[in-house]
């Protein structure tokens, strides 16, 4: 479904990614772990068009998406949930969901989609009219994920969904991600919390200093000596 091949990404003169290869198939949940500054967020930004790779190729459903502006890539069905649940602070919860369905193919079923979201996240229905700024960190993250679902995406990119949240909220959040996964969405998640993220995924990548160090399916990846020591603490 998504094939990232040998991309180099720069911030000005600083190179953040070196020949990174990542692929995701339909209905697959892929996790990328790695330390701070390894280029995990950069990878997501390059896929969704907020950054443009200097070299390399990104193909989505067979067509090249390198160089397309971010809003065009969103229309194709790739939806990024930014770190920290960047919801629109002065829009109400309902309006945040509505803007999630801005892309043409999602507008028609907007009403029904909102109802489905409210069933999945009853908390959001309770706070429907509140501006998003007044939500707690966990609620904001859930709203951000719900907003992404509203666009009927084919591939969801999750950037550090658990960052800054209390442990109990993190567990709830991963339960939601597991729910979404069962519904058949393809997911690429970048996460510091390697233990929880790895339980959820089909395959994983390790990104260190802008390079892919390791890749594999869940069992073999989690069994690697380096992963066990540095990321799982066992």
């Amino acid at each position: 479904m998504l094939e990232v091949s040998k991309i180099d990404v720069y911030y000005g003169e600083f190179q953040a990614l070196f020949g990174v290869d990542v692929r995701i198939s339909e209905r697959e949940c892929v996790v990328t772990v790695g330390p701070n500054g390894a280029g995990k967020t950069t990878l997501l930004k390059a896929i969704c068009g907020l950054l443009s790779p200097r070299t390399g190729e990104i193909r989505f459903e067979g067509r090249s998406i390198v160089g397309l502006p971010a809003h065009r890539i969103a229309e194709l069905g790739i939806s990024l949930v930014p770190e920290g649940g960047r919801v629109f602070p002065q829009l109400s919860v309902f309006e945040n969901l509505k803007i999630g369905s801005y892309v043409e193919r999602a507008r028609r079923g907007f009403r029904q989609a909102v109802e489905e979201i409210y069933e999945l996240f009853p908390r959001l229905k309770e706070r429907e009219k509140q501006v998003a700024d007044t939500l707690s960190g966990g609620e904001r993250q859930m709203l951000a994920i719900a907003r992404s679902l509203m666009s009927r995406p084919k591939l969801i990119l999750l950037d550090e969904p658990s960052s800054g949240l209390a442990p109990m909220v993190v567990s709830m959040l991963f339960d939601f991600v597991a729910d979404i996964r069962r519904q058949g969405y393809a997911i690429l998640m970048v996460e510091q919390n390697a233990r929880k993220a790895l339980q959820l995924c089909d395959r994983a990548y390790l990104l260190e200093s802008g390079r892919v160090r390791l890749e594999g399916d869940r069992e073999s990846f989690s069994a690697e000596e380096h992963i066990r020591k540095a990321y799982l603490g066992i």
Partner: protein
Amino acid sequence: MGILLLNALVNGILLGGVLAILAFGMNLIFGVVKVIHMAYGQCVMLGMYVIYTLTSIYHVPFLLSCVVAVGVMAVWGGLLQILVIKPLLKAERLNQLLALAGLIIVFENLAHVVWGADLRGIEIQLPVLSLGNVFIKTPSLLAFLGSLIVLLVLYLFLYRTYPGLAIRAIAQDVECAQLMGINPGGIYLLTLVIGGALTGVIAAFFSPIYSVHPHFGGSFTLMAFIIVVLGGMGNLLGGFIAAFIIGIVTSVSAVLTSLEIAEISALVIFILVVLLRPQGLMGVRVSK
């Protein structure tokens, strides 16, 4: 004196309605595109010349001239976005400000060349209404009512439609808005077209009240800017309330003292707000 004050108060409120649209346009452009349209009042001036030319020289009916002027000014706003603002989006703040301030000189001299320095007004006779001791000029009343309708339409547009929602979203977080599939370039153009159409609407409301000359716009750009700062930059409701405050203050102080003092009093309020409440009366302080 009491009757005079009452009349001034009513006139201030009526003027406040039109000022509210003026400030709304400038505020919308600032909130979305993050540039200050320094030549906004000058666009109103150009719109008034369009109406003057059509009605007085080509004898087009007044209402039709107004509709044409709104269209012309909408296109004018769009051209401004494409030719001036878009190339400067990534430029330094100061350079953007200088370029837009430069437009004041361009527009005013354009008016000089095309229409000359004389006062140009259209001839429309409308009755003066009287309510007891309060006298109301019909054009002022129509402008006020028209302004409220325009503001209501703008409110419905911003709060009930997808493009309106996209405008509000992009004002809050451009990057995130792109992730929703919103094209910033398209929304910026739409914003300038709406802002331009509003200068045409204001020109239509002003034409039966004032005669136009090449420097007509200056005081209105200043007034719009004062209102926008007073209400809090980017805060549309704050701007609405501030428009009435400024409308009342200028028209009441004009009666109490003189026209010059009226403008000074608006500026004094402006300076006090910048000193004491830089975030505006209803603005939210942004910490860095």
